[in-house]
Structures are given as C-alpha cells and as structure tokens.
C-alpha cells in the first residue's frame, strides 16, 4: 500500500506496517473502490492536496457521502444527525461504519503527509 503512515512504518517496523495495511485494506474493502477513491480525493482537496473530484456525473447517494466526508477534516463536531442519517440511508449501518472509518483515515493520512512523517522517520 502507499501513504505516509505506512511508508514510515515500513522503513522502521515491518510488523506494525503489515497490521496497519491490513486494517486499511479491511476498511476500504467494505466499500466500493470507486467510493473509496472519491472519499480520499475529496478529503485531500479540503487539505489543499489536489483537486476536488468532479461530481457532475455522480448519483445523489455518492454526492451526499462526499459532502459528509468533506466535513471530516475541520468540522467533525458540527456534523448533524440529519447529515449522518442521510449517509446511513444510502449506505446502510454497516456501510456508514466503514465510511466513517475510511473518511477519518483519509483525513489522518493527509495530515501525516503535511508534516512529512516519512521524512521525520528517516525515509
């Protein structure tokens, strides 16, 4: 896998790197690859790390999920019950759980990139 957290671990602690990769794979594997890619791109754009996804051809369910994901980096305490219910309506409860984890991990990965974690860890 790629990403700053795994890269820093892979160079220093292979066992933890494997377990982190397995956790990310399980989380992302619970959603469609297309939705995972869009979540990661939308969250990265909020952090100023690349362009936001083109949503013009996306269905309502995906746009609702992406609007929610964009709140994760800086507005997580302001997300309303109604916003959460809208995502759950589209994804179901198991899907909402996976979505919450994937969006939160995407935010953490961006933040690790912004402090250049691999460089700090000597990679």
């Amino acid at each position: 896998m790629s990403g700053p957290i795994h890269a820093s671990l892979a160079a220093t602690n292979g066992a933890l790197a494997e377990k982190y990769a397995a956790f990310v794979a399980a989380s992302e594997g619970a959603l469609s690859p297309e939705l995972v890619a869009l979540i990661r791109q939308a969250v990265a754009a909020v952090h100023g790390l690349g362009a936001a996804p083109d949503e013009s051809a996306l269905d309502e369910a995906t746009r609702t999920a992406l609007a929610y994901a964009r709140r994760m980096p800086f507005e997580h305490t302001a997300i309303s019950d109604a916003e959460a219910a809208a995502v759950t309506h589209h994804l179901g409860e198991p899907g909402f759980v996976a979505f919450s984890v994937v969006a939160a991990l995407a935010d953490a990965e961006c933040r690790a990139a912004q402090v250049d974690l691999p460089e700090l860890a000597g990679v």
Partner: protein
Amino acid sequence: MSTIPRVSSAIAGEPAHFGSVLAHQPAIAARFFELYGAFWGSDVLAARIKEVARMRNARVTECGFCRNVRFDKALGEGLVEEVVDDITDGYETSDKLTETEKAVLKFTDALIHDPELLNGDARAALQRHLTPQQIAELGLGVSLFLALAKALITMGLEPEQMDRTVLPTPAVLEAAE
C-alpha cells in the same frame, strides 16, 4: 455534537459503543484491535509517551470518551493526573512534562491541528529526542487516536457523562489454543 448513537449496536443485548458498533464490520473490527493491541504492546515508544499524545488529541478533538479514559500501563509509568493536567495549552512551560514529552506534544498538535507548528526548531527537537522508529510509531499512534476520536464523535458515540475510568492497556489477544 450528538451524544445519541447514530448507529445501533450489532451485538444483541449490548448498548451502542465503539466495539458493538464496529461489530457491524467484523473484519474492520478484527484488524483494528490487532493493530491497536500491537501498537500499545510495542515497547519502542514508552506507554507514557503514547498516552501523553492520546490525551492531547482527546482535548483538541473534543472526544469526551477519549478524555476520560486512562490506560493503566502509562499510569504505572508515572502519568498521574497532576501531569495530565499540564497537557493543555501552554504545556511548553510545564515543569512536570519532560522535554521529550513537550516535543511529542508539538508534533501531535502539528498533525491534528496545524502542520505549520512543526517548524524547524520543533522538527529538530522531535528528531533529537526520538529515534526514526519511535517517530514512525508515534505517527501511527496519533493518526489512530485522531481517526478513532473522529469516528466516535461522528457516529454519535460520545457519552453524555462519564467518570474518569482506568482501563487495561489494549493488548494483542492470544489465539485460542
């Protein structure tokens, strides 16, 4: 911020909490607890250092559950409440936190709040006090603390009220023989 669960428990008879909600996704739950147990079980970085970073994340992200939980291993390494009280804004002037812990707190603030905080001096201090392996482990920990706190909050799993609670430090569960 909602204190009403937005996801039901997936375990019959149990209220909605992180474990019972994550049980909607058994594979994610299994891989998370394996990772979290291995992270806390590793002695590359002292549990006290990890807990200092976790407490700072709890306060900045406003995670009430995280803020009220204490892990016993760090307590055994001297992270008493008088020290925890100093993990707040102005920690730089604390006489209870070590210089290593202050460098860890600056890194934590940079990762969870503002990357600009990790300027040249702060980066140098972190690399002076911690080895590359320790920094990688710290980076994993702070990332997990942040993601876990945000997942808890957005799934409505914050407690309305919670007393300070000392819990066993997460550990890797041995496979049944």
